[in-house]
């Protein structure tokens, strides 16, 4: 972390997708009968990205981490909430400011076989952002970007088509394309998960160099916690469109607090057969993202379920008294004095029995 200036602030971002029911249903809706269903892909996510910081977004498939990443680079228009870049709200930004933002926000995609146009040469692919933004010295910049991505000699790759390249080379081209505009931050969506294991280390060290030499802020999206631990300064764990735990990487990996984070970290294999550990396997499936359950979204799979409060009150992501990271769970006491039981309509007896069953005496 070179500076603590906040580059990008995500404020209660929500992205809901309408479930497509065909045109007859939508016609009936417009006449007032029936309500559309929404997939709550991202449902109130807030975090900030500081300059030069790497932030990891983790969670299982379908938890909304990719949608969050796409919203960050304005591939999706948020349903609610906002992104604040450079002290400007993007929802109120002018066209010129949006263009400026586009120049400074780039994305690296998961699948290098899909993220390059099969009918464009490497040179055209990398030069495209420069042409869009009318930036001079095209050839020299493209060459520099390719060289940075360790595609050497760069001229050799100019006229090659994606199908002539290996997966690792393609991902390097994609990285060069993201870097050629000299952006402020990059969203990397599972940047190495489609690559051969043997190529991953090379691409990862390239990404590492990228953050260091460009002073970039990077949002890594991945389900691979060991990768995120290696790459990120801070982590945010997502579940069903919400962040459940957020904080410094080492804190979260070594001392996870949310039951979901605990089970995620437990699932990471340890390369030592002698290490025996208690396995907490996650039961059941991710809940219904269309018909969101009340209260805590994790309650049905939670091993530490403490009763009505989990059923009725949505746990806010907040600072807790005992540890550094922010956690969205009723198990721990809020540092700001928020009391979830008040919201239940005052039934302290239920709260007490709930907590009595728990082994968290520090809460009392």
């Amino acid at each position: 972390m070179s500076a603590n200036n906040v580059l990008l602030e995500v404020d209660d971002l929500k992205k809901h997708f309408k479930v497509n029911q065909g045109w007859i249903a939508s016609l009936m809706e417009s006449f007032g009968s029936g309500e559309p269903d929404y997939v709550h892909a991202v449902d109130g996510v807030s975090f900030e990205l500081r300059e030069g910081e790497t932030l990891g977004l983790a969670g299982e498939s379908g938890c909304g981490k990719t949608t969050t990443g796409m919203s960050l680079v304005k591939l999706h228009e948020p349903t609610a909430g906002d992104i604040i870049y450079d002290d400007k709200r993007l929802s109120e930004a002018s066209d010129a400011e949006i263009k400026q933002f586009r120049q400074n926000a780039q994305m690296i995609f998961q699948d290098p076989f899909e993220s390059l146009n099969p009918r464009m040469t490497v040179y055209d692919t990398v030069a495209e952002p420069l042409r869009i933004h009318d930036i001079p010295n095209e050839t020299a910049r493209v060459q520099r970007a390719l060289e940075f991505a360790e595609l050497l000699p760069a001229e050799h790759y100019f006229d090659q088509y994606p199908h002539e390249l290996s997966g690792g080379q393609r991902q390097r081209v994609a990285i060069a394309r993201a870097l050629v505009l000299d952006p402020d931050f990059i969203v990397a969506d599972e940047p190495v998960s489609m690559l051969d294991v043997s190529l991953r280390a090379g691409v990862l060290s390239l990404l590492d160099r990228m953050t260091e030499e460009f002073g970039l802020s990077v949002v890594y999206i991945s389900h691979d916690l060991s990768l995120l631990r290696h790459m990120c300064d801070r982590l945010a764990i997502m579940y069903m469109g919400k962040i459940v735990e957020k904080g410094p990487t080492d804190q979260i990996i070594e001392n996870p607090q949310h039951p979901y984070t605990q089970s995620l970290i437990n699932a990471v294999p340890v390369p030592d057969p002698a290490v025996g550990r208690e396995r907490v396997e996650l039961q059941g499936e991710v809940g219904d993202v269309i018909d969101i359950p009340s209260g805590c979204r994790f309650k049905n799979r939670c091993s530490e379920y403490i009763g009505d409060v989990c059923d009725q009150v949505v746990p806010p992501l907040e600072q807790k008294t005992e540890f550094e990271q922010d956690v969205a769970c009723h198990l721990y006491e809020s540092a700001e004095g928020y009391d979830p039981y008040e919201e239940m309509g005052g039934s302290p007896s239920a709260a007490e029995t709930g907590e009595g069953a728990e082994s968290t005496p520090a809460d009392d």
Partner: protein
Amino acid sequence: MAQEEQSSRSIYTDIDDAGSDEEINKWQRTFRLWRETLKEHWGLLTDELSVKLSMLVVAGFMLIAIFAPFIATHQPLQRQYQGEAGIIIEDWVEPSLLGADTEYLLGTTAEGFDIFSQLIYGTRAALLVGLVAAIFTAGIGTLVGLVAGYYGGKVDDALMRIVDFLYGMPLLPTVIVLVAVLGPDLWNIILALIVLQWRSTARVIRSQSLSLRERPFVKAAEVAGAGDWHIISRHLAPNVLPMTFLYGSFGIAWAILAEAGISFIGLGDPNTVSWGTMLQASRAYSALSFGAWWWFVPPGICIGLLVISGFLIGRGYEEITNPKLQ
């Protein structure tokens, strides 16, 4: 390298400051890449014998069409002789090709027209209909498909309902009605064919661009700030272009067949000679029952040859664009 970070945040600073003298000429490069792609496709296409033969046939017909006035021995719509009372003669001259002692290579029709010259001039009509109709159907279909597929939503709905409506109209009867309303003119036939035939190209191109626009390389262009037109022209169009060519080459064959069919029914242009009108005339004069096969066999063969060649070329190109067929 990490020390650089402190001095300059960008690895491009020196480029921006100093400028660079070396810049690749964009047009030269684009031209060279296009030439290479075309050469490669041409090589693949002519690799197959059937495609090579078909191309020779089409090229031959094209030469004939271009040099028709020099090849034809007579005016195609000029009576070669008059009957006794100046009325239509119902007598034909046998072809000299079969040993008859006349100047007419393929004989004459019952109306006294030289069949060989009609055949030569008929090539012009066939190729005109085929090429113009194919270019416009493929062009309109591709444009509509790209717009519908890219924008989706209401634009897509509106355009696809038009296509659905057109799909509800049977090809030949509709063309017949249109030609009957607009008048039997070759250009009206072409227009009617274009109006009805872009539908299938539009459907296919739409489905292609629907899936293309969700591909990450389109997203990457969006992230870089590309506008709608940029994405359609640089990312979608080049990827559907092989499909456009394919439908274009099939379109040639369909258009020629349809024109022959319409002319055969009697709705052809009376002022131009086409293979279809030749067939229609031969039927009207019952050439078949009089055994005057030299009247209707040559145009039939020509139609068959050209249509089959068109399909074979299309098929060969399909194998290039869709390697699964090989």
